[in-house]
């Protein structure tokens, strides 16, 4: 990405200064700066606490599944606080309901920044909702961390210097799924079914990059306000598509699977990570079919992940998160959304620790750009740098079996929106003994 300030001498000097101070902050984290006493170094930070805020769909159309993310993050913060917090400070997490309505997101975000006076925004969920406030948050110079959306809109360092993504963006995900289809399902006719917004369109961009736009048998889309997807599925069937790539939210994955089953149409489904959580899907499928169909319908779905699957009990991160889940939020199902929320909270704890004892808003952002954080529970590395605000850089393909277990398939691949796909050679880290960074 070309930044408009690059090219002018003063701009270059500015960048040099930013990099230098970033380096100093990074050095500081390992030595002297961390000694001393806690001060109220920034809005939302006191000697004993750091307050962060978020807007989440606790009610409304996006609530099923996604409403678990914030309580899961909060459970991790409570666990963290009971184990000493970050530099002795407790992390206080205030998350407000926006009902997935951008207008509510706008007013709730102002409440958090102007009234609660949070240090940073964290994990705010949704593309349309967060697009409504990203300008405002940046104009207030509030760190805007780990947006819960894979839109590549968050990776715009020049326009949104304080905003950072977290999950693998939809274009990279689309590319890696496209590569899988090219390698493993070659010769079959491919159709798309996608949400008609940044989520679906970014995914399609990545798929087209690998499969070639002209080779696609049929492209069907939906808007989340219309739950009748029968016509689109019938069109895919008529086109003879043997593989259907589905960039859908969970409810629409379930609707698509049920509509296809009703039509006697059984293509190979390739579903984006967003819409493939087994626990959520099984619940939705049996709810929509009034119990007539269960999780069996999910057998054979190809999907991907950048985090370990919640069913992978051999993974030490899953053991840790399951333990925190059982202790603090036992009433919620232990699924991909809970793993997502806790993994995000872990990344924040890492970033807060790296920023030193008494960070300001700007020193925190510089530290995040200059410190190499481990991917934590993530399968792929985190990409944060001064010219990149994208989080996880890749995914690993996985296949859902008829009994609901998920098996990963092949290596982890990484990419960027425009670059080539490469195999990731690093290995996942294991959690620290006490579970906090």
């Amino acid at each position, binding site marked *: 990405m070309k930044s408009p300030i690059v090219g002018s001498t003063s701009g270059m000097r500015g960048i040099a200064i930013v990099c230098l101070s970033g380096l100093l902050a990074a050095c500081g984290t390992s030595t002297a700066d961390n000694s001393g006493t806690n001060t109220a170094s920034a809005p939302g930070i006191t000697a004993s606490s750091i307050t962060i805020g978020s807007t989440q769909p*606790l*009610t*409304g159309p996006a*609530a*099923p599944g996604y*409403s678990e993310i914030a309580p899961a993050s909060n459970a991790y913060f409570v666990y963290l606080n009971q184990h000493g917090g970050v530099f002795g400070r407790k992390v206080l997490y205030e998350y*407000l*309901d926006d*009902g*997935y*309505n*951008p*207008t*509510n*997101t*706008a*007013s709730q975000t*102002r*409440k958090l920044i*102007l*009234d609660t006076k949070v240090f940073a925004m964290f994990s705010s969920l949704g*593309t*349309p909702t967060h*697009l*409504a*406030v990203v*300008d*405002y948050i940046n*104009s207030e110079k509030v760190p805007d961390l780990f947006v819960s959306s894979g839109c590549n809109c968050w990776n715009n360092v020049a326009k949104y210097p304080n905003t950072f993504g977290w999950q693998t963006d939809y274009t990279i995900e689309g590319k890696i799924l496209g590569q899988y289809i090219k390698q493993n399902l070659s010769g079959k006719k491919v159709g798309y079914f996608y949400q*008609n*917004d*940044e989520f679906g369109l970014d995914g399609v961009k990545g798929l087209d990059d690998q499969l070639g736009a002209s080779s696609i048998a049929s492209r069907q889309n939906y*808007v*989340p*306000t219309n739950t009748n997807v029968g016509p689109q599925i019938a069109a895919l069937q008529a086109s003879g598509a043997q593989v259907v790539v589905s960039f859908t939210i969970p409810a629409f994955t379930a609707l698509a699977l049920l509509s296809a089953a009703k039509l006697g149409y059984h293509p190979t489904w390739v579903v984006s990570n967003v819409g493939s959580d087994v626990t959520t899907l099984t619940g939705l499928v049996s709810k929509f079919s009034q119990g007539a169909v269960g999780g069996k319908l999910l057998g054979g779905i190809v999907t991907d992940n950048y985090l370990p699957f919640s069913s992978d009990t051999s993974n030490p991160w899953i053991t840790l998160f399951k333990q925190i889940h059982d202790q603090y939020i036992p009433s919620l199902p232990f699924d991909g959304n809970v793993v997502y929320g806790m993994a995000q909270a872990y990344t924040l704890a890492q970033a807060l620790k790296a920023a030193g004892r008494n960070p300001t808003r700007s020193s925190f952002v510089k530290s995040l750009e200059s410190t190499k954080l481990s991917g934590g529970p993530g399968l792929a590395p985190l990409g944060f740098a001064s010219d990149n605000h994208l989080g996880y850089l890749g995914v690993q393909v996985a296949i859902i079996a008829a009994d609901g277990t998920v098996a990963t398939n092949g290596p982890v691949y990484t990419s960027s929106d425009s670059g080539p796909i490469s195999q990731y050679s690093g290995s996942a880290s294991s959690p620290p003994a006490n579970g906090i960074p």
Partner: protein
Amino acid sequence: MATANLRFGRLYRPTLTRHLLLGLGAAVLLFAISAQIGAYDDYNLTAVAIFAVAAAGLTLLTGLNGQLSLGHGALMAVGAYTASLLLKDHELPVVVVLLVAVLTTGIIGIVFGYAAARLRGPYLAGATLTLAVALPQLATRYKSIFGGDSGLTVPPSAPPAWLGADFPPERWLAWIALAAAIVTMVLLANLLHSSVGRTFIAVRDNEVAAALAGIDVGRTQVLAFVISASCAGLAGALFGYWSGVTAPAGFGLGLSLQLVTAIVIGGLGSLAGAVWGSLVLVVIPALTSGMASTLNVPSSVANNLPLAIYGAILVIAMLAAPHGIQGALQRLLALARARWGHLPAGGKKGVMDWDDPAADP
């Protein structure tokens, strides 16, 4: 209730001067308040001013002209989308944006007013309800123009340089919204005290009698609808600036019902009531916010809780104070005057007429 002395006094103070002085007083007071409070309170004050503009327009239509509109949220959307589209590629002064929004919504108001003037009672309510439900869907349908569910972002109106670099943008927007609200109130108050205002009331009270008295009923109703729609357009444009985003979900049926709630709770047909109602609209959600998450109820219940609360408030308000907050205040005032005040000429101490809402005009 009013005495001969009072009427005589009014002759010496022309309506316009009285309203201008009231407006000026309100302006001085509100601007002083806005400068004392924090940025978040300024942000909420802006919301009260915006709702007051829309509610004032609606109370003129429903309270004084007798036409119920359940579609004013959609008319606000027209104003908001007009402002957003204007600001998409151009930097325009706030005043220009607001005026264009008023004109656009006024034109839509003419079209819809003609249809509305032919409808009565539940049919009118149904037609305006259609507007509230259907209009925001256009934004989703024509995504390339209106931005779909994400909507259009509205760039903030930056405070002028002479206010200093540290001047909070929330306070600047509060000033704009308060100025717009006060201008609207003064204009509407004058209109209501003119012959036009009296024809509105005449048509509301008895269309046949009004027609026999030489009033063109249809034209009066269209005029009331256009004025009311223009107010909604102004409020919508301000809402766009306030929210920073114009998206269909922000202008759903809930907004239209909120406006009706505001004018009923505040006191139907009274401009002061519109202001009280707007205050309630902003304060109640602040009290109930987070209720859905703290109550730990299933999402199907929590989704509908805010609307259910408005419904409950409406019912209780109707039972406790059928003439709204403004009606209740005026009665208390009248009661106090009757109990402790000077004896009005011809009046009896301690006696008052409960059925007279002591309406403003």
